[in-house]
């Protein structure tokens, strides 16, 4: 991994069209500003982790819970 040291207000350019600016440093938190073309996908890493975890959970569904679900859904109460 490339590691760069930046001060408040300084930035990093990635390719010709992506710019990451250190906007604020507060204790253990860093606020970053990102300038990128509209079609660039930007997500917090946790989003991918959450989707990953959710996929694992989803794959564990067993037919029994599904038949419970079928019964519950058909129950007009």
């Amino acid at each position: 991994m490339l590691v760069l040291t930046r001060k408040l207000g300084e930035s990093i350019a990635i390719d010709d069209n992506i710019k990451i600016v250190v906007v604020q440093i507060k204790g253990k938190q860093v606020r970053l500003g990102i300038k990128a073309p509209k079609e660039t996908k930007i997500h917090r890493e946790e989003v991918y982790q959450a989707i990953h975890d959710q996929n694992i959970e989803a794959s564990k569904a067993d037919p029994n819970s599904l038949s419970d679900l079928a019964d519950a859904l058909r129950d007009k109460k």
Partner: protein
Amino acid sequence: MKINTTRFGELEVDKKDIITFDEGILGFENLREFFVVDPGDQTLILWLQSCESGETAFPIIEPKIFKADYTINLLPSELNSLTLENLSNASVYAILTIPQDVTTMSANLKAPVIINNATKKARQIVLQDSKLEVKHQMYADLKKSIVSYHSDDSVRTRVSQTQPTVLSQETITEVTPNTQKENLQEL
């Protein structure tokens, strides 16, 4: 080809119904080939079954069924990656998580599975829309639409089967309540 599955036993799958995820699915990167099974349990929930791993299957559903206003915006690069010009020839599914307490079931609206119906290439795409949830609770909404769906006689024959069936994307479009054409255009 015959595929042995843990949940549905042995299924005969036509090559043309096999859906390819070139990048796999997050957490299942090594699994590339899937097909869609209708378990015939009247829940409108289908299964995305892995060809390579008989025990791996994801319950999926068309989000429009429980959330009529679900719309997704794909970036041009995302459409390109599926060789789609728009979503009119695509199927959109949300992966469901169904815990023991079924009333807490949730749908992943943040990262739907998009299938190009013509090429059968698919991807799970993480959408940029920050309002969409990975764990969207939807039991009550699904129940509401199932009760109204079942009161519609014209579709009853379709859902009354009890044997698992492998679906091609063409047949799936018939399952959608309301007018499919309209739905797709909203997407």
